[in-house]
């Protein structure tokens, strides 16, 4: 494309590109700046362009708008997070949530990431994906609901596991621990000497040789009848 041909097309193109940029960025100065950048890009590559350039120009404008929106909602590279953050409960929960998000169907995953991780609004997501805001909201709602359900299932399973482990540890501790207690008419004694003395007394009474007692018993039974 020659310089004259470019100039002719560019004049008519400007208003069209502004309306495209305003769809993404609203009626702001940024929309004007984006169109300006588009025109500069097109100018620099005018020799490779073939008429008509309106479709290509719209695509460049759209891409520049998306780049601009991304810059407005900066994200932090997960590898740049400090070690301390990784160890915190919040860090673990976020990692868990990201793992759950990765298991979602691709559309839900993309929309959820765009909205919650990149901070994009539903309107912006709808524009980027060429969908409607209502559809994006519905998908977002379904995705959130699925994440919630899966997280609840994971936490429930983890809680159950922790509970079982605690009970097992407690029971093993109880099983293996020593116990030395005596209740004498409701009064509790835990000192080893008293308890062992009581135990020995009871044991001795039970195992004592009862031959003499047995004879007496038999004689009593005989004469009482």
């Amino acid at each position: 494309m020659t310089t004259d041909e470019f100039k002719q097309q560019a004049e008519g193109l400007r208003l069209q590109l502004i309306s495209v940029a305003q769809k993404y960025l609203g009626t702001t100065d940024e929309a004007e700046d984006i169109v300006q950048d588009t025109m500069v890009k097109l100018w620099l590559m005018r020799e490779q362009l073939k008429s008509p350039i309106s479709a290509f120009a719209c695509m460049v404008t759209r891409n520049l708008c998306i780049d601009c929106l991304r810059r407005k909602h900066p994200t932090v590279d997960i590898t740049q997070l400090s070690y301390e953050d990784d160890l915190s409960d919040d860090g673990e929960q976020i990692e868990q949530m990201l793992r759950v998000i990765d298991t979602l169907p691709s559309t839900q995953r993309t929309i959820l990431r765009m909205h919650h991780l990149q901070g994009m609004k539903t309107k912006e997501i709808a524009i980027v994906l060429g969908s409607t805001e209502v559809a994006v909201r519905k998908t977002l709602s379904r995705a959130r609901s699925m994440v919630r359900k899966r997280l609840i299932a994971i936490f429930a399973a983890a809680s159950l596991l922790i509970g079982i482990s605690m009970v097992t540890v407690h029971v093993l501790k109880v099983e293996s621990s020593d116990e030395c207690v005596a209740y004498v008419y409701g009064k509790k004694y835990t000192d080893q000497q008293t308890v062992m003395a009581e135990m020995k007394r009871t044991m001795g009474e039970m195992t004592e040789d009862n031959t003499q007692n047995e004879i007496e018993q038999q004689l009593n039974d005989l004469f009482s009848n």
Partner: protein
Amino acid sequence: MIFMACFWMLLTTNAQSGLNIEPLFAGKIIPQQRMVETRVKGKMLSKYQLTLFRSVRFQANNKQEITRVHDLIELDKKKHPNNIYSENYSSTKSRSKETLMLQLSKEGNHNRFLCYKRNNEEVTVIYMEGTLNSLDTLRELIK
């Protein structure tokens, strides 16, 4: 939660559970205020080759209490008819003095013993667990 409760109950059952006399140890027949109860477990019993010792001693207030305990012991005796160690015991409860010593079925590697003694109104019941082979050995160890 239900699963946890069942799991807890399963793991915390008493060693002497399964015996008919178990309610006596649980204080369900004679209130704790009227009993002398001993519960010893662990290393302190190693001298006697035991791991668990539980005893209950009480003065019966009436014949019904004696009869109830006697009947429960009788049921446990019937469960282990071939394991009676020594007996000076009457199933008619007419005697004023009774003793019964039972070796119960093993639980794991542990031998189990149940002893019952009544001297007029005084009743003593002992449950023991351990590697102890016989009550004769215990008699020797106590000396």
